[in-house]
């Protein structure tokens, strides 16, 4: 069970996070925080032509929360807002065990399914994804204002 959680892929993302850093303005910034453990994920992103043209994260926390953020950045870069929404839903369902883990569907993200056996860690795995959700709300609100 533990091996499922701390797979090579999680530890690799934790040790060598992809897209860690901040963006220069203009950007959308969203902070995510888990008060019970102090995990923190801040997502910076930029939307151009309805696509996430650039995205970075920073913050601090456990391997699960940070690896999850790293995988997220890798997965959503270049995606349309609609695609990103779908990916969030898919991943939350995966993490919560509502769907089977399937490499064909989820790619590397299947690694996150390992938290299912550790209920206290589900919040760590979902933090980045909930934060992205909020960031996308900001993006939609800005898009509405511009039109």
């Amino acid at each position, binding site marked *: 069970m533990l091996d499922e959680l701390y797979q090579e892929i999680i530890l690799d993302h934790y040790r060598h996070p992809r897209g860690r850093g901040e963006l220069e303005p203009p950007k959308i910034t969203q902070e995510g*925080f888990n*008060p*019970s*453990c102090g995990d923190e994920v801040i997502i910076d992103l930029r939307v151009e032509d309805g696509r996430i043209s650039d995205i970075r994260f920073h913050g601090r926390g456990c391997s699960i929360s940070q690896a999850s953020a790293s995988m997220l950045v890798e997965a959503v870069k270049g995606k349309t807002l609609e695609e990103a929404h779908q990916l969030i839903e898919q991943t939350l369902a995966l993490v919560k065990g509502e769907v089977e883990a399937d490499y064909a569907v989820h790619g590397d993200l299947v690694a996150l399914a390992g938290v299912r056996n*550790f*209920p*206290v860690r589900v919040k760590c795995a979902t933090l980045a994804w909930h934060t992205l959700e909020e960031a996308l709300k900001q993006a939609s609100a800005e898009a509405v204002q511009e039109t």
Partner: protein
Amino acid sequence: MMTTRFTLDAREIRQQFPFFQPHPEMRNLIYLDNAATTQKPYAVIEAVSNFWAYHNANVHRGGHGVGAKASELYEAARGRVARFINARETAEIVFTRGTTESINLVASSWGETFVQPGDELIVTEMEHHANLLPWMRLAEKRGARLVVWHITDSGTLELDQLRKLLSERTRLVAVSHISNVLGVINPVAEICRMAHEAGALCLVDAAQSIAHMPVDVQAIDCDFLAFSGHKAYGPTGIGVLYAKRALLEEMPPYHVGGGMVQTVRWDRLRWAEPPAKFEAGTPPIGEAVGLHAALDFIDSIGREAIAAYEHELTEYALARLQEVPGLRLYGPREGRTGIFAFTLEDIHPHDIATVLDSRDIAVRAGLHCAHPLSERLGGPTARASLAIYNDTDHIDALIDALHYTRKVFGYAG
């Protein structure tokens, strides 16, 4: 015999309560003090014991599986309460120690923030101190005015009267769903509607209704609702404050401490979201598990069925109480539940209770934590109050014992 029309078998229900089983060292009591607290079914006692034995851990803080399980059980209890009273979401359920704390929380957090000098708070004359003193104190603290909605001589509230009391200065109407003395069921949905039309909020004290009839916060449309676990077959140490989400959002925290903050810096605090915002410190975890089991117990019988049976029993009791010479019963004849406050000749209520106690019948005597109402009624009363495990045998025993009481005090049979 009348017994045939009764829709429930209370003897069978008593089988589910250790309190009513023969015990070598205990008296076998006819328990008619249910408005003070109800007895507890095995299911509740065992749920609590089981929690202590196998699932005990603190909640909401990261670490280990047993803690996750305890959190899950605690939140499941919250979900159960939300379904029980038909709240829109579980975040509208705040766990407290009981009705008294729930109402104090509202008076302190909402009241001291939103009630301004010159504002008015309407309370009814029949309120229990728990739904009276917090408003008296709030009025004094904030320079607001306490407006008393008096009862009629038959012990009811008149909506016309409320119409006259409501004004644009009214901030809140505080009313009990069922009076713990008069047994009267108040038209709380109507009261809430009128309060809202006047731009005021409405708090419903459901301490006496929660275990005896369906209570639906959306149908009532109250802004706040409070009740205690221990009057609903659950343990002490737990109660509920229901409040509409928007109110909980704008209200400041009550107790402050662990679990209700997101960040604490020396110069900056960020509160957690409701309901956590209002639950500082280790909550009553085992007690929430017990309350969950209690609500399951109630629904296993069905609240419609409970209300129907207790109504039948109430009718039976009302008829039989009339047979006792010199007995004066308070509260209305109709629209009421099985809470019977009465006096008997000039025999002091305490003396009545003592004579009944000597006959193994438990009733309560005194002012029932409702001094202004008791004052209005002319002093202390004796009170017998029913629950789902009572039956006509209990009423019959009560009537016999009241006749006997008269004899002890020298009144002719």
